[in-house]
């Protein structure tokens, strides 16, 4: 089944808010070489003016990919995940994510276009906090390789 271009303009929400824990922040830091104290030590984070430990820069991808999955795994999207290649990624921050944040996400399908045998898809995931204030926007492009390859 080909990629469904009629999904352009559709939106998908994270089924339930993502609660940022100190443990998840520390685990992501350890896995990605983010060694700064403020990822692990609450006092180090509060001394910089943050409410709690600060998540590493790309931590938002956890939430974004959960939200994007609602679109990508929807059978009606026509996306064969085994043929997906990640093209690009962008994080635009209003503020850093900190432990204790309860984050919601909505993924907007901004573009679905054919390029030869392939399809290129752009999604934009808006991540907001419990007060419905913007935190970070995650824009991702993926390429779905065609059957010809």
């Amino acid at each position, binding site marked *: 089944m080909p990629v469904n271009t009629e999904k352009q303009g559709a939106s998908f929400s994270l089924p339930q808010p993502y609660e940022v824990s100190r443990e*998840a922040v520390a*685990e*992501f830091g*350890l*896995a*990605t*070489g*983010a*060694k*700064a104290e*403020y990822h692990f030590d609450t006092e180090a984070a509060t001394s*910089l003016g*943050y409410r709690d430990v*600060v998540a*590493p*820069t*790309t931590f938002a*991808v*956890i939430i974004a*990919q*959960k939200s994007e999955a609602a679109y990508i795994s929807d059978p009606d999207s026509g996306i064969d*995940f*085994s*043929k997906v*290649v*990640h*093209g*690009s*990624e*962008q*994080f*635009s*921050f209003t*503020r*850093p994510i900190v432990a204790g944040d309860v984050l919601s996400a909505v993924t907007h399908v901004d573009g679905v276009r054919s390029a030869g045998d392939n399809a290129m898809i752009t999604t934009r995931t808006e991540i907001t906090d419990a007060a419905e204030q913007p935190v970070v926007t995650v*824009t991702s492009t993926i390429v779905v390789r065609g059957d010809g*390859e």
Partner: protein
Amino acid sequence: MNPIDFSALTIGDTVVESEIPLSRATLIDYAAASGDHNPIHWNERFAREVGLDGVIAHGMLSMAVVIAPLVEWLGDPGAIVDYRTRFSAPVPVPDAETGSPATPTTALKMTATVGAVDAAVGTARIDIAVKSGEADVLSRTQVRISR
């Protein structure tokens, strides 16, 4: 904390350089931390079946490990306003032939240089070149910072 002195930044200057070793264990740790369990990042047979030469690193792992040294240099994680990249080539991560699976089998080399600066406003763009061997594995990697 010492905030970045934007008037001391000169376009073209290298501000951070680092080499980041990767092993199969790095990929497993990232899969667990990120929730991205795509088997192309840990199963050799599956990776070959979908047309790869073997297991490759998550693009998002590369994106994460090359920003970490820059954020440490910045001092304040809130200084980052925007971070973007394109995934231009896969990063193969072979299994170590002997010893621990945590034995590094490849490395990423990151070089961060000043791409633009506006000292009056207190903003700058840092460009990061990322190589695995001779290959540019990330391209147009840009970090916008603000005081």
